[in-house]
């Protein structure tokens, strides 16, 4: 397995070749920041106020690493949509089969209604099972991941954290580099009475029919301890290859 530096170098090469051949591509980054506010936020507005006050300017913990975690679900969704291929069935999830497997181990056929799912990553202010997810599991990433290893539950009990709403993705265009960037973001607070180690981050896509499909899962280089009364922010950022001019 490549370390982060090797991975970055290889990604640079990939993007360079993709730009020459004019094929679309994107790279990902995972950012995690932990801060200790004087007063715990209770609402989205509280979090906005803290952000505007600069609480993340000097986080207690800052983690940034490349994402290397698109799963078979994500690939199959690409094959459906960009290659125009129907689901091949719901009997088997694996090589040669175009379908998705949700977090409850149910294999699904063609997804529906993508045109209405602009905010599929924007889970509401509780944990409805999609959006950015966090967990304590440290089992290495696998292309076959379809669920979190050990998901942290929403709540204030032992081992639980509060899930705030996924923020609207921040999509931006850089006219100089001709690249798109999109940042998906979510906040979590630890109101429990002990420290919780966050070891894995997932991204879960929502469709109709109740499909919640993990499309990416990253295990952090080392677990990040979030103490009682601390606030954690997860950024899932993607940057496109330079668009042709």
């Amino acid at each position, binding site marked *: 397995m490549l370390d982060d530096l090797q991975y970055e170098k290889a990604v640079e090469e990939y993007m360079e070749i993709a730009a020459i051949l004019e094929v679309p591509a*994107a790279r990902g980054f995972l950012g995690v920041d932990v801060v200790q506010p004087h007063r715990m936020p209770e609402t989205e507005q509280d979090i906005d106020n803290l952000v505007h006050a600069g609480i993340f300017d000097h986080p207690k913990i800052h983690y940034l690493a490349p994402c290397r975690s698109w799963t078979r679900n994500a690939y199959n969704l690409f*094959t459906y949509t960009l290659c125009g291929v129907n689901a091949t069935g719901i009997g088997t999830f694996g090589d040669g*089969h175009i379908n998705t497997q949700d977090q409850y181990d149910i294999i699904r056929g*063609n997804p529906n209604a993508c*045109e209405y799912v602009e905010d599929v990553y924007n889970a509401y202010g509780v944990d409805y099972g999609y959006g950015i997810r966090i967990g304590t599991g440290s089992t290495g990433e696998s292309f076959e991941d379809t669920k979190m290893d050990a998901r942290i539950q929403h709540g204030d009990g032992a081992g639980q954290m509060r899930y705030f709403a996924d923020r609207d993705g921040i999509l931006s265009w850089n006219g100089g580099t001709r690249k798109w960037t999109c940042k998906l973001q979510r906040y979590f607070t630890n109101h429990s009475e002990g420290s919780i180690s966050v070891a894995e981050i997932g991204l879960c896509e929502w469709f109709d029919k109740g499909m919640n499909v993990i499309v990416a899962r990253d295990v952090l280089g080392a677990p990040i301890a979030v103490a009682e009364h601390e606030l954690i922010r997860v950024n899932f950022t993607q940057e496109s290859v330079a668009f042709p001019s």
Partner: protein
Amino acid sequence: MRHTGVRSIEHENRLYDRLRELSRQLKIPLIEPLLRVSKIDRDGKRELVIDRHCRSYTRNMYNVYFYQLNLKELGSTYADGSNRCKHRNGSSLDVGNFAYKNNVEAGNFGYISGPGVLGHGIVIGTGTTAESFDDYVIETVIAHGVGGGQMEYADMVAAQNEGWVGGGPYYFHEMERVMSNNSGGSITVNESVLYWCGLNSNYVFCVLRDKFGAGVAVADGESIAVNYELRQTYP
């Protein structure tokens, strides 16, 4: 002229070999577009005249690819800084309209078109303008029919081939359309496009437009087969 950094077909193939290798290693989805064009004589004998990667992904395809990763829309016009797409009729569309459909391999959905339908699937033309990133429509369409300058477009539903190649590994979808010339005269084909149709014909996106290096002359009584393959590399 696109792909000015590609020196030759061999150079292009080497770059794709490396891109595939890195795609698997890094887990970055790669969708290779390939184009094959064959002439079919009166006896049904095929002659492959073009066999190469496409050099023609449009802005529509780039926007859809990036949208697939983040599912966010931005902007109100089709231009840099917006990820809206362009319908073949010139109007702009939300990228999210590049929708999933229950059956994308049926006639007139996805990349597949029924007989004689020119609004979807593979369409050919006589235009000679070089490819552009902002192509959204065939330049000079060859109409369906048997009149002067027209060709008969076959059904695409049965002319699909797809599957998993474990030795890659990759999943491929080949789409082919045969156009027959019964016009009474020769027609030179210079360009082809691949259209995607979402929920209905209000949502048609050109994802590839290829200008042939040299026009393909199709005599009366002959046919041309245009085959697009989209190949998704898997780790």
